[in-house]
């Protein structure tokens, strides 16, 4: 099996599985109880939290709230901060757990602002953010790394631009595609209002994630109950999952430099292999949707997105699946859901180009041989399918 859809999710690291299993056996007590059994578990929870702080250089000025994952973290921060009438903005290319959360404010008469006009290659162009000041935007929500394109919104750059051009606007970043794939700068926390992380994108368990939130911010809880986690997120803590998350973060950060180097090598190899495939295959018109820049402040090397009209991405995907090669898709080709990816059309692709695309995303297990096998199978599927999709061959 060749798995090249690591932006969707990643296989769990065996060491993380062991840590979770062990904790499931040992740490069954409720970390909120006052007897020693519970206090021991609470201690392990605090150790995990400290380990996360150390791994990511999260300063004491910021709190860590454990959640069920990236979507909950995004919902908790945005709703908790902006409800009901604080003005919100996003680029319009974020994950649905951000864009749909912003959309939910419309019902309250608080229409969110889209900065899509300010995007270049899927990133926010920070040269002119005066609109944020004019519209009195209180919170700007962005992906740190775009989930379909890999384009990077560099927090340091954006925070500086906001400080200069719209000081009342705070920055929230969805970081689920960034941790372990980019080096997070310890300096980015200063000024950052919130940041979300998910366990399963970094070889950790599903069902757990976290929100980093600046301590001064008065966040309204979205889940009420036993007032755990600074009263911000009630519910008994899933200690084994959190221990797994902490280990996954630690391992991904330790390996980050190697991962980045490996992903750059893989991305470079993929792009060049695809280009030479296209050279030998005149009917293949390749178009790279993700930036080919090797500047890590602009593009994550973990994601390569490309189009190849007129053959639909989903059909290629299923042909690859027959060979046990699994890749990602931003959009569906079904006769029932003709909606192409909003991210791809958002950066200017036509609906057809958006439908005829694939997303390759690398993980720690990905190899050059995986890329070779993918490109070969892709070429074969493309050759086989081209005539069916090329409408010019259709009889009148």
């Amino acid at each position, binding site marked *: 099996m060749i798995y090249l859809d690591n932006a969707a999710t990643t296989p769990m690291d065996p060491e993380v599985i062991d840590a979770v299993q062990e904790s499931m056996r040992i740490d069954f007590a409720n970390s909120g109880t006052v007897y020693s059994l519970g206090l021991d578990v609470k201690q392990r929870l605090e150790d995990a939290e400290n380990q996360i702080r150390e791994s990511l250089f999260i300063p004491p000025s910021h709190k860590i709230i454990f959640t069920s994952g990236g979507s909950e973290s995004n919902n908790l921060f945005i709703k908790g901060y902006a409800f009901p009438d604080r003005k919100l903005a996003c680029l319009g290319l974020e994950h649905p757990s951000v864009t749909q959360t912003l959309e939910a404010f419309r019902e309250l008469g608080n229409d969110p602002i889209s900065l899509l006009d300010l995007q270049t290659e899927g990133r926010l162009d920070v040269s002119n953010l005066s609109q944020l000041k004019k519209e009195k935007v209180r919170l700007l929500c962005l992906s740190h790394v775009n989930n379909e394109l890999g384009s990077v919104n560099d927090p340091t750059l954006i925070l500086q631009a906001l400080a200069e051009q719209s000081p009342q606007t705070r920055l929230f970043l969805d970081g689920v595609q960034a941790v372990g794939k980019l080096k997070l700068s310890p300096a980015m926390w200063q000024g950052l209002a919130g940041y979300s992380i998910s366990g399963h994108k970094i070889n950790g368990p599903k069902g757990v994630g976290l929100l980093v939130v600046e301590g001064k911010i008065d966040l309204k809880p979205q889940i009420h109950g036993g007032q755990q986690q600074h009263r911000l997120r009630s519910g008994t803590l899933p200690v084994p999952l959190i221990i797994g998350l902490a280990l996954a973060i630690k391992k991904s950060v330790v390996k980050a430099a190697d991962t980045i180097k490996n992903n750059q090598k893989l991305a470079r190899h993929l792009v060049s292999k695809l280009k030479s495939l296209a050279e030998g295959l005149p009917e293949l018109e390749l178009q790279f949707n993700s930036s080919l820049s090797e500047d890590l402040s602009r593009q994550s090397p973990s994601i390569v997105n490309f189009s190849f009209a007129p053959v*639909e991405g*989903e*059909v290629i*995907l*299923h*042909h690859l*699946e*027959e060979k046990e090669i699994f890749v990602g898709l931003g959009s*569906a*080709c*079904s*006769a*029932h*859901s*003709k909606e192409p990816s909003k991210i791809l059309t958002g950066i200017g692709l036509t609906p057809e180009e958006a439908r005829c695309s694939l997303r390759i995303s690398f993980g720690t297990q990905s190899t050059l041989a995986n890329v070779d096998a993918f490109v070969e199978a892709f070429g074969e599927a493309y050759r086989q399918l081209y*005539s*069916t*999709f090329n409408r010019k*061959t*259709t*009889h*009148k």
Partner: protein
Amino acid sequence: MNERRTILVRYDEIGLKGKNRDQFINRLVKNIQMQMKDLEGLKFKVPHGRIFIHCSQESSEECIRRLQRIPGIASASVGVTRKPEFDALAAVGVEWIEPLIKPGEAFKFCVRTNRADKSYPYKSPEIDREVGSRILGQLHSKGLEVSIKEADFILEIEIGQDETVVFNNRAPGLRGLPVGSSGDILGLISGGIDSPVALYRMMKRGCRAHGIFFDNRPFMGRGGYDKVVKLSKLLNGYQGKSKLYVVPFEDIQVAIRDFCRPAHRVVLYRRMMYRIAQAVAQQKGCLALATGESVGQVASQTIENLNAVSDVVTLSVFRPLIGMNKQEIINEARELDSFDISIEPHPDCCSVFMPPRPATRAKIADLEEDETKYPWELLMLEAMGKMETVDLDDLTT
């Protein structure tokens, strides 16, 4: 208390049959026994065309639940067997009614008797009166009254030659005929809302409805296949012993798309589906085809296009939804419990195969001309050679 219960099963249209009535009843009994084979301690009795199931009080609820999903049953009641003596029958009434009477409030009841055993020395109204007056005598002081028209509680008595049963409930059944009494048919099933309902309707007419699915892999993922298997399993729950035939359809679709007039595509696909379905039906001993088509619902379901599709087969094609509107079909899909599965978002056809403007009135001569442009006989044989058979009884959970 775990007293034995007697379930009285009333069959539906079997009652209208003539000399072969026993065959129908035996079929229904076999179907009931098959659906209940995992329940312990059941005893079946079929005296003189009536169906009784003796079971424990505990399992009676599950028995009723299952009986309500077996075609051919009009209704079923859980009761107790007693000697056909007025005092014994009245005692049951007192036992059941007394706890329901609230102090200071009137409670109305009546007794209704069906005297199946005509040799019994009292007529039905006499039995009603005798049993009713005994109950009233014991409970009148607590507020019990008789009312035929506005009864809060109806005590029913069925007096048979072998057994007399007292009950106070009737769970409605699916009605129709027992599966197997009308032969096997092969239904074209997709992941949509309509085709499962069509097969369900055929089942209720006594057919064992097998399914044939035309698989779009690898243009589409396995999601569509999984959904059809799930729907077929649901349908099999009503009938048992049915099969799903899965035929790969991609090569045929690609050929039609590449070589034939785009406007004709859908009708041409369906002509191939019908041809293959007929061949499979004949191979597997199915007597007819069934589809979920309804006039005018989509472009391929105009009368002209339905004719053009039927033209390629000689077997009868049953279309039990032909005159129904979408909402009626949806209501029935909800009754069948297929609706929620059918609306799961798994695409059943890639948009590349859909024509921009499908013909609503395809002419058979034109379709035949299109079919000279690709080797359909060969592709049909190849597809049938790759057919997979899913035995739905073998699927667990």
